[in-house]
């Protein structure tokens, strides 16, 4: 298998604080990777560096055979890297349907040519149905609950038709059945050929979803392997539970 995403020795500092210290990570095409770590361990910074929201100072990111260093976030999205934000960031003045139009108009449009308005409408409806928001297509994000906001966030990331989807804590605050829904959704996406990186604190979800698990602690990757092995790794146990 070829690596779809290849992160090599990347480093990122904020002033004197080392947020990412020499992290390498490979994700194969079609894989489901779980990324865990305590709060402040650098998970979101890693995502930001992969997606171009932040630029890493050291190391390199390769995606789908291309070097990503120096590319702006939107160029990486055009190449098939899509992410959801940990705290949902909807476009508040646009309806839900229009929220999903943005990635279609700018990413899918760029990749595969202009879309017909009917096409866009149909895809929006389909995506909203997938996340269970089909009745709220004409609503504004302010009418949504936090949970629905997370679903919208995920739907928008999917609207860009990515090769790799990074779900940054898409399930925080969701009820058990809602987690099941989102998990099923992500698995279905994965089965349709999309590689998924899931960042999550909810261990049951991560364990049932991930084929491989990587653990970040204080900006370092301390474990990477089969989920059941990783959670038994003494370093990981120490990071989560203390000595």
């Amino acid at each position: 298998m070829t690596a779809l995403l290849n992160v090599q020795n990347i480093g990122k500092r904020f002033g004197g604080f080392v947020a990412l210290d020499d992290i390498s990570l490979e994700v194969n095409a079609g894989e489901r990777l779980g990324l865990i770590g305590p709060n402040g361990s650098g998970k979101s910074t890693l995502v930001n560096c992969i997606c171009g929201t932040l630029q890493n100072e050291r190391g390199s990111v390769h995606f789908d055979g291309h070097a990503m260093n120096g590319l702006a976030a939107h160029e990486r999205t055009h190449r098939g890297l899509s992410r959801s934000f940990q705290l949902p960031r909807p476009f508040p003045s646009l309806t839900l349907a229009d929220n999903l139009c943005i990635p279609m108009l700018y990413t899918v449009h760029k990749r595969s040519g202009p879309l017909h308005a009917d096409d866009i409408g149909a895809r929006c409806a389909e995506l909203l149905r997938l996340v269970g928001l089909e009745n709220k297509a004409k609503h504004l994000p302010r009418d949504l609950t936090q949970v629905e906001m997370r679903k919208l966030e995920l739907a928008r990331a999917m609207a860009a038709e990515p090769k790799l989807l990074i779900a940054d804590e898409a399930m925080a605050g969701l009820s058990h059945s809602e987690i099941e829904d989102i998990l099923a959704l992500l698995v279905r996406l994965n089965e349709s050929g999309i590689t998924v990186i899931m960042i999550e604190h909810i261990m049951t979800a991560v364990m049932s979803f991930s084929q491989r698990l990587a653990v970040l602690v204080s900006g370092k990757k301390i474990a990477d392997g089969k989920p059941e092995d990783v959670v038994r790794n003494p370093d990981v146990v120490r990071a989560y539970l203390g000595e």
Partner: protein
Amino acid sequence: MPLFTGIAIVVALAVFMLLRVPNIEYLFVAGYTIVQYIVLSTAWNILGGYCGYVNFGSAAFFALGAYSTVALATFGTQLDDLVPESAAPFFHLIFPLPIPALIVIGGIVSGIVGFGTGYLTLRLRGAFFAIATLALSVVLATLVVNWDFVGGSGGAYVVRPGEFPGLGSYMQYLFLLMLGLAVFSVVVARWIERSRLGFGFAAIRDDELAAEASGVPTLRLKLIATTLSGALMGMAGAPFPYYIGYLAPASAFGLEYAVNSIAMPLIGGTTSWIGPVIGTILLGTLQQVTTVTISSAVNVLLVGVLLIAFVIIAPNGIVGLVQDRLHARRRK
């Protein structure tokens, strides 16, 4: 021709014909100012309303258009001193330039400066961007004050011809041109609003980080907005020297251009092309009426009071107020 453009042209022509009926020249003088503000506020709204970047430098772009005209008019009157004798006949043929050509040139000059300003300042957000545009206005005003060719601090006279063949007074011709420009800018604004570009602008206004993550090339789109917005403002400024007859830096860089072109869209509503138009017609007419009936100084007070009132009562302007009502009704 698209239906909307047709309707806009018909409305503009109807306004022109109606104003001709009473045969009062002043109607065109006052009307020109209002229509000019439709162009300015619509132009401001492309950057300020659609993209969410508050531009305090409208006066700079407006003045750039006006001073392009002054520079070219001065050049036209001093042709024999400025160009070699062999080329003089050619220049005499094209100078003085017709006002439509001056409008295009003013638009190009301001568009280029808009692009440059955007490139230098668009990494700033919120108040910092606003301050940078205000600074641009001050810098340009200083340059003009010290540039003797366009009259320096003393100002420059531009002689307005008395009549325009076939129309009557030259003021009517200027009014008609500005009306055409207003139609053009409103059609452009409405087209943007419904296009892919407009969706991108809205995404930038709402959340730039999320816009980038959705694949919107934010910097490029913002540059398109500053260029377009600046160009339209410059176009509005180009005929101004002919309207006013005497252009001084203080009047071209007047604070009222910056303030009005912000206040009018805010009062009307910034998310739609109709907002600036409504705001301008309301506030512009009110200003003209108070100028005649009370005093021109009351204008400024009026803008201030109305702006505060709207920020408190209807932060999204008149259009926002109506939209909220409709939205609330739909939810019931």
